[in-house]
C-alpha cells in the first residue's frame, strides 16, 4: 500500500530536500520571480529618477515582509491572525524605545531586540491560541493588537499614545545598514551620481536598498521553508488537523513555531520600517494595518508566500503612489484608498466560489492528502 504510493509527486517533493542541495521542486516556477524581481528592483534606481516613486517602492518592499510573515502563519497553518499589526508594532516600538532611551545602542542591536520582543509576543499569544479556532482566534488576535494600542495610551509618556515616538535613529546611521545601503547605492548609481545628491535623496536611496536586501533575505528564507518539507507539514495542519496529528505531526510544536516565526519576521520588518521612517505611531499597531495585510494576502493568494509578496507591491504602490496620481480625490481623502480595497475584498469574497481563504492547493500534494504526505515526510527523513 505505502510502497506504490510513495512513487508520487509528493514523495518527490519530500525526497528532494533531504538530498540537501536541491531546491524544493515547486520553487522552480517561482525562481524566475524570486531572482528576476530583486534584480529588477536593484537596478531600477538607475533608470528611474523619480524619488517619490522609489520611496513608495521602499514602503511596498517593507509591506512585502509584513504580508509574507502573515502568510507563513495564517496562509499556511490556517491560524488566521486578525491582529498581525501587533507583531509589527512591537518590533517598531522596541526599536523606537531604544532610540529614545538608549541612543548609544547600535541600530542593529536595537533591531535584534525588536525581533526578540516580537518573537516573545509570538509565544505569549501562540500558546493560548493553540486551542482557539475561527472566531475565537480572530477575537483573541484582534484584542491583543487593541490591548497594545491601549498600552501606548496608558504609558503615554513612554510610548507616546496617539502621538507615537519620534526621532528614531535612521538606517543611514546604522553600522551595517548605513554602509550596506550606501554601498549598493554607489554600486548601482555610480559613486559620483550618488555623492552629488542632496541629503534628502541620499536618504531615500539608502532606505530603498536596505529594504530590498532585508526583503530578499526574509522572503527568500520563508519561501525555502514554505515550499519545502516543513511547509507541507504546516499546510497539512490547515487541511485537517486531526489527520495530521494522526499521521504523526507534532501539532503544538509546529503551530507555535509558525506563530513565533511569523512574529519574528514581522517584528524585524516593523523595526526596520521604524528606522527608515524615523517615527512610530499607532498606524503600526491598529486594525487598519491588520486588515490591509489580510487584503494584500487575499488578493495575492494566501498560502504561497510569493503571492502576498506580489500583492504587497500591487496594493501599496496603488495606495502610496498611483492612486494619488489618478485622482485628486485620493489626495484629499486618503481614507478612500483603504475603503476601496476593503470594498474590493468584500466583493471578491462574496463572488469567488470557494473564497480566497483558506486556499486549497491540490497541485502541491498531487494524489493523497497533504496530511498523509506530511506525516510520511516527517517519519521518513531526519
Amino acid at each position, binding site marked *: 500500500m505505502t510502497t506504490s504510493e510513495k512513487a508520487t509527486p509528493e514523495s518527490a517533493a519530500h525526497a528532494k530536500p533531504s538530498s540537501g542541495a536541491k531546491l524544493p521542486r515547486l520553487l522552480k516556477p517561482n525562481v524566475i520571480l524570486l531572482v528576476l524581481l530583486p534584480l529588477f528592483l536593484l537596478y531600477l534606481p538607475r533608470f528611474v529618477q523619480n524619488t517619490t516613486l522609489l520611496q513608495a517602492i521602499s514602503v511596498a518592499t517593507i509591506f512585502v515582509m509584513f504580508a509574507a510573515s502573515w502568510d507563513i502563519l495564517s496562509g499556511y497553518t490556517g491560524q488566521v491572525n486578525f491582529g498581525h499589526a501587533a507583531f509589527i508594532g512591537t518590533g517598531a516600538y522596541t526599536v523606537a524605545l531604544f532610540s529614545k532611551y538608549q541612543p548609544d545602542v547600535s541600530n542593529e542591536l536595537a533591531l535584534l531586540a525588536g525581533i526578540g520582543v516580537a518573537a516573545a509576543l509570538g509565544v505569549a499569544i501562540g500558546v493560548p491560541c493553540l486551542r482557539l479556532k475561527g472566531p475565537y482566534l480572530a477575537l483573541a488576535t484582534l484584542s491583543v493588537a*487593541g*490591548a497594545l494600542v491601549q498600552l501606548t495610551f496608558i504609558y503615554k509618556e513612554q510610548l507616546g499614545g496617539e502621538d507615537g515616538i519620534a526621532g528614531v535613529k535612521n538606517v543611514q546611521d546604522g553600522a551595517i545598514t548605513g554602509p550596506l545601503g550606501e554601498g549598493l547605492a554607489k554600486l548601482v548609481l555610480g559613486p559620483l551620481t550618488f555623492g552629488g545628491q542632496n541629503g534628502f535623496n541620499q536618504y531615500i536611496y539608502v532606505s530603498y536598498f536596505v529594504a530590498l536586501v532585508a526583503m530578499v533575505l526574509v522572503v527568500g528564507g520563508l519561501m525555502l521553508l514554505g515550499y519545502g518539507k516543513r511547509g507541507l507539514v504546516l499546510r497539512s495542519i490547515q487541511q485537517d488537523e486531526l489527520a495530521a496529528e494522526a499521521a504523526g505531526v507534532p501539532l503544538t510544536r509546529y503551530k507555535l513555531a509558525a506563530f513565533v516565526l511569523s512574529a519574528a519576521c514581522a517584528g524585524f520588518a516593523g523595526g526596520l520600517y521604524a528606522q527608515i521612517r524615523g517615527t512610530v505611531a499607532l498606524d503600526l499597531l491598529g*486594525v487598519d494595518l491588520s486588515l490591509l495585510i489580510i487584503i494584500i494576502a487575499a488578493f495575492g493568494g494566501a498560502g504561497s508566500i510569493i503571492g502576498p509578496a506580489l500583492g504587497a507591491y500591487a496594493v501599496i504602490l496603488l495606495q502610496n503612489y498611483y492612486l494619488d496620481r489618478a485622482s485628486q480625490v485620493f489626495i484629499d481623502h486618503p481614507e478612500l484608498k483603504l475603503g476601496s480595497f476593503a470594498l474590493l475584498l*468584500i466583493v471578491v469574497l462574496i463572488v469567488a466560489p470557494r473564497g480566497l481563504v483558506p486556499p486549497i492547493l491540490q497541485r502541491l500534494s498531487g494524489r493523497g492528502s497533504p496530511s498523509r504526505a506530511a506525516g510520511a515526510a516527517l517519519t521518513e527523513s531526519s
Partner: protein
Amino acid sequence: MDVLVQGALTSATIALVALGFSLVYGVGGIVNLAHGSFFMIGAYSAYAADQAGAPLLVAALVGVGSAMLSGVLLERLVIAPIRHQEVAVLIATLAVAILVQSVVQFFYGGLERQLPGFLDGSVSVLGVNLRQTELLAGVAALVTIVIVLLVLTKSPTGRMVRAVAEDEEASVLVGVRPERVTLYVLAVGAGLAGLAGVLVAPYGVLTPTMWLLPLTQAFAIVILGGLGSIQGTVLASVVIGFLDRFVAFNVKDGSIKIGLVTVAVILATLVIRPQGLLGKVAR
C-alpha cells in the same frame, strides 16, 4: 455609590450593543465584526438629521432606522452569500467595518462632532450628581432591554428565534426559516446598537473610529457571558459596566485604563474558560 449608580446606567447602554451581537451569533452562528459600525451609524445619522434641522426625537429615530437598514443590507448583501464560511465572514465583516469608517471619514472628516444633549444640566440620584442626558440614556436603554427580553421569552417571534438558536436543523423541521430569522435578528440587533449610539453620543464625541470600542466591549461581554447565551450576555454586561466605572473612579487615571481592562477580560476568559460564564460549548 457613584460606581453603583453610574455602573447601572453604563451596564444598560453597553448591554444594548452586546445583546445584538450575541443574538446574531446565537441564531446565525455569525460573528459580525461590523457590529460596532451600527453603533456608529446610529450616532452619525442622528447627527446628520440634527444638522439638517430635525427635532432631536426625529433625529434619534433616524439614527435607529439607519442602523437597522444597515443591518438588513449587511445581511442580504454580505453575510447571506457566505454564511457558512466562518473565516470569510470574519474577514468580510471586518472589511465592512473599515469601509464604513472610510465613508464616514469621507463625509465628516476626522474632526470630532458633537450631538447636542437631549437634556441639559444635572440631576441628583441617590446622592450622586449625574448629567440628565446620561440618566435618560440609561433609563431608555434599560426599558428597551426589558422589552427585548420579554419579546424573546414570551412572544411567538421570540420562541422562533430561540428555536433557531437552539437547534437550527430541528427548527427547519417545524417550519421555521432560519435565514429569515437571521435577517430579523440582525436588523433588530443593529437597531439596538444604533439606539445605543444615539443615546450615548451626546455625552461623548463622534469620530470615524468610534466603532472599535463598542465592538471590543461587546466581545468582552459576549465572551465573558458565553457566546450564544442571552442570560450570560446580560450578566456579563452588568459585570463589565460596573467594572468600567469602578476602574474609572478608583484607579488613578482610570478612564485611560478602561480599554486595557476590557481586553484583559477578553483574553483571560478565552484562556481560562473559553465558553464564558454561562455559554454553551463552542460550536
